[in-house]
């Protein structure tokens, strides 16, 4: 119970935002109308993606200095989880765009840059597949991951501002700032962000655990299996206790 409270919190928050996001009142703005509710479902996906990719860069930096297989695995699994959220963000955005802009994909700069930044991470995964040797793979892919991260930040946060976009928040279209005044939306939006970030983290921990069990099962020698198993178990316990410490603090 002690270790799972944040998972319960995540589930409660996501269920709450799904219900409250569809039922509670929203301000009526031109063009957006009721589609404004997509804010609760579309924007948190990007927040979760950014958090997961940041975790991945953190572990990539760590694996460069520690050379540990576990850090490398954490980096790749958080990228995997982040890509899921990025694709969900693109899909929720495209569905919204169908009803407000008239097309699923209208080559809006925001859509393009988001898609390109996901391509970066697909390239990362392909780079991993191209290298057989494990140590080398960990090192080279960590380097590419760190090299690509600032580019993703430029793509997602800087370049769209230089271009004319129809996306809310750009070029005089009603955006997040105008809802900031509305406390009803804030009541749902902030919990939604926190909830989805926690769910993203949860997905990542599960994927990491599956991957480490697979690695243990695929290790051919019994003695080695024991030591690898031990190291994974201790690493995982450590990460869980660290998490708890951080969250209690």
């Amino acid at each position, binding site marked *: 119970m002690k270790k799972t409270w944040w998972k319960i919190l995540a589930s409660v928050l996501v269920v709450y935002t799904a219900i409250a996001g569809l039922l509670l009142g929203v301000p009526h703005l031109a063009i957006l109308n009721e589609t404004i509710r997509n804010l609760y479902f579309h924007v948190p996906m990007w927040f979760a993606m950014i958090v997961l990719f940041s975790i991945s860069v953190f572990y990539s930096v760590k694996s460069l200095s520690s050379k540990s297989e576990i850090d490398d695995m954490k980096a790749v699994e958080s990228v995997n989880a982040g890509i899921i959220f990025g694709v969900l963000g693109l899909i929720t955005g495209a569905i919204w765009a169908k009803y407000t802009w008239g097309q699923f994909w209208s080559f809006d700069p925001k859509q393009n840059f988001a898609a390109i930044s996901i391509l970066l991470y697909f390239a990362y995964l392909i780079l991993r597949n191209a290298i057989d040797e494990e140590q080398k793979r960990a090192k*080279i892919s960590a380097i590419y991951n760190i090299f690509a991260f600032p580019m993703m930040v430029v793509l997602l946060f800087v370049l769209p501002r230089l271009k004319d976009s129809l996306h809310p928040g750009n070029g005089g279209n009603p955006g997040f700032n105008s809802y900031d005044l509305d406390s009803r939306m804030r009541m749902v939006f902030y919990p939604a962000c926190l909830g989805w970030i926690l769910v993203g983290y949860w997905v990542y921990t599960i994927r990491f655990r599956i991957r480490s069990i697979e690695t243990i099962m695929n290790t051919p020698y019994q003695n080695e299996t024991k030591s690898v198993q031990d190291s994974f178990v201790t690493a995982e316990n450590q990460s869980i206790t660290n998490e708890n410490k951080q969250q209690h603090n």
Partner: protein
Amino acid sequence: MQLAKEVKYLIHKEVLLEWRSKYTINGVLLYVVSTIFTCYLSFVSLGDKLAWNALFWIIMLFASINGVSKSFLQETKGQQLYSYILASPAAILISKTIYNTLLMLVLTTIALGFYTLVFDSFTPPDMVLYYVAAIFGSMSFSTVFTMVSAIASKAGNGGMLMAILSFPIIIPVLILLIKLAKNAVDGLPWENSYDEIAMLLVVNVLVIATSLLLFPYLWRD
């Protein structure tokens, strides 16, 4: 000053090697010229200046992938080991980047001259700004591709990886370059382009800084 000395020496070595064989410069030059001809023959009816501008940058993109990727991909394992003994990783990266920038600058200048010669109607009204875009283009292409070619060469899976890894990284730069060059083609005053120039500088500094931080890890085997 040890670093500056090493860099100077390594650039001298690169230029000398290139001067002896003249393989890259002639090869890429022929590549650019034949691509321009192919494009001309395929798109004769294309009258739009902006489309020609975009085409120029796409041709330069592929030319620079071919030209710059050679810097690490063509070196043998022995050569890499030898230079690892002789010089610091930072010196190797800086010298390669500077050498590639010079190479791309020469290539872009020749390609731009040829382009304006062949497509008489293309000649941008603000040639100086267009040339500034070309300088930034050769600089950004060489900074990004040098690091990516180092990564691809270490992964040991040459050309294909090079394209996959570098395209998502170069697209933002390419978009900025095309926008800057478009301003020159439209003959807009320089004030309109300061945003793009500043952004290109920021991206280049970012790429160089991360490459310098990461290259020592990559170089060490």
